[in-house]
């Protein structure tokens, strides 16, 4: 066993504990700045994972193969740390609306620890514990504004549906373990094909997929997303949209392509993936059309993006898997740009209505530009990150259609294109509200702190860099998915 492999996780958990303790010694008015300390510490960890110093970028397995460090887990760990850093920036801007802000920071860091473990999970016990660490932390993060009814209500809804999905998942794990006798993904892969006809085993696989489908908000397990996204504090919503979803996807990819590859490539399961992906895209995009609440709109948009990401899973080839990784990297910057603007602009307003954006181009040109770029990238317009991600995902579906000759892939391709066209309408509705609203009520300029400006520029740079120079990330992603089948 090589315990030094988990040094990154141990450092993150230590950071969370230090943040909680520091709260005791800090005067209340300075606690807000603990967020910057957490950002600095996570930045050092991110650099360490790139520089390869210490043991942050070692590869290998630990705990009898339950924990694996490989290209895939390293890619996701870096993605999660970047996401947590940007979410903490948003949280600092949001701190005037939260009590007990340092607990909020440390909960974000603990959720990050869960995501790091999820990126390395190679065992059902690890999968379950890491997913629960993320989910239980998010119950608290979602309902953190205790004085706001919407926040509590969102928390309770997330709690009930989250606990329901974990009950399904754990029952599925019990059935899989009971029939095969294996908890480890690598060992399960060796024997899974013998159980392809076992009804109990297949039911177990299905139940585990229910649990993971809930995490990524795929149809028909998406009902929680709109209410939870709307009621949760804005930084939590941002972390839910990227962190929790990406953790769901890394676990889904490990489960499908490393634990049960022989079942995944069967006709029944690939057809199911095609259908779920198509319906998720259509559902998310159609339901987003009438939305006026910005956070609810982004919730439906995040459901549709889960559908686009599932295209890469349904394609069942390495290009599709690499496209998922690339798409998540682009989605990270896009979503955080959008939620940063929402946190800043809607500060004074009680509602989160799209009309609150009226006159934003006069109030703060930088914020208007950030939100516009985010919306254009989400809609998939070149040359931004969202376009290239969608292009790669669709390309992998075309490849799958050519190699397998399954007509379902052409239907899926058509559905995805229809979804993109529908989404143009509501994304450009937001852009129109920024630039072409009639008689904005409030034209006072919006004060932005230096950190907020830095975050906005970081997100814009990320969106453009991924869109204009995709090769660096794409090559890394192709290497990372090399171990998947």
């Amino acid at each position, binding site marked *: 066993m090589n315990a030094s492999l988990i040094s990154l996780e141990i450092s993150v958990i230590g950071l969370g504990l230090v943040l909680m303790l520091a709260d005791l010694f800090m005067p209340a008015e300075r606690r807000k700045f603990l967020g910057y300390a957490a950002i600095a510490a996570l930045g050092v960890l991110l650099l360490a994972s790139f520089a390869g110093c210490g043991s942050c970028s070692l590869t290998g397995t630990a705990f009898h193969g339950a924990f694996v460090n490989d290209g895939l887990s390293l890619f996701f760990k870096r993605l999660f740390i970047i996401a947590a850093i940007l979410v903490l920036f948003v949280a600092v801007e949001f701190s005037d609306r939260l009590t007990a802000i340092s607990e909020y920071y440390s909960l974000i860091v603990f959720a990050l620890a869960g995501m790091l473990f999820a990126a390395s999970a190679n065992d059902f016990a690890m999968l379950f514990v890491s997913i629960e660490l993320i989910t239980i932390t998010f119950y608290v993060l979602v309902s953190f504004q205790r004085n706001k009814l919407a926040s509590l209500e969102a928390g309770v809804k997330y709690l*009930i549906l989250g606990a329901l999905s974990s009950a399904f998942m754990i029952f599925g794990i019990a059935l899989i373990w009971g029939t095969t006798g294996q908890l480890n993904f690598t060992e399960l892969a060796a024997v899974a094909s013998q159980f392809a006809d076992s009804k109990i085993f297949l039911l177990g696989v299905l139940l585990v997929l229910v649990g993971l489908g809930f995490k990524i908000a795929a149809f028909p397990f998406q009902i929680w997303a709109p209410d939870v996204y709307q009621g949760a504090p804005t930084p939590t919503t941002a972390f839910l949209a990227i962190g929790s979803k990406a953790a769901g996807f890394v676990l889904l990819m490990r489960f499908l392509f490393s634990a049960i590859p022989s079942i995944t490539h069967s006709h029944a399961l690939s057809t199911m993936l095609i259908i779920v992906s198509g319906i998720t895209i259509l559902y998310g995009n159609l339901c987003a059309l009438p939305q006026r609440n910005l956070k609810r709109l982004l919730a439906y948009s995040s459901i549709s993006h889960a559908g686009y990401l599932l295209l890469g899973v349904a394609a069942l080839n390495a290009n599709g898997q690499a496209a998922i990784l690339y798409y998540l990297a682009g989605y990270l910057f896009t979503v955080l740009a959008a939620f940063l603007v929402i946190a800043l602009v809607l500060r004074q307003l009680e509602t989160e209505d799209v009309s609150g954006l009226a006159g934003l181009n006069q109030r703060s040109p930088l914020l208007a530009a950030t939100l516009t770029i985010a919306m254009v990238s989400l809609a998939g317009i070149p040359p931004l990150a969202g376009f290239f991600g969608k292009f790669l995902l669709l390309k992998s579906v075309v490849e799958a259609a050519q190699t397998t000759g399954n007509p379902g892939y052409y239907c899926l391709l058509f559905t995805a294109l229809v979804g993109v066209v529908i989404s143009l309408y509501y994304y450009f509705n937001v852009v129109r509200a920024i630039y072409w609203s009639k008689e904005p009520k409030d034209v006072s300029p919006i004060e932005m702190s230096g950190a907020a400006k830095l975050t906005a520029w970081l997100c814009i740079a990320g969106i453009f860099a991924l869109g204009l120079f995709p090769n660096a990330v794409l090559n890394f992603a192709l290497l990372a998915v090399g171990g998947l089948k």
Partner: protein
Amino acid sequence: MQVGLHHYLTVSILLFSLGLLGVIMRRNLLVIYMSLELMLNAANLALVSFSRFNDKLDGQVLVFFIITVAAAEVAVGLALIVALYRKRQSAHVEDLTSMKL
């Protein structure tokens, strides 16, 4: 009659279905939450009986993890439900309707 794996699994599936039925049918948040715990324990029962009849201990170890996680979940969940009750003076799902299209 010899009590075998099938009997235990039948009980486990019955418990799971009862819990699911409770989550769907009941209207009180606390009862729904109890039903959820029933579903988790159904999975525990399945794991332990598989463990006993297959002579492998991994399942029992996993049960310890599940019990611990469920305890954490209950701590957070009950706190949340109590906070909601204080705000609304009600723990019924019909009252969770402040957010709609």
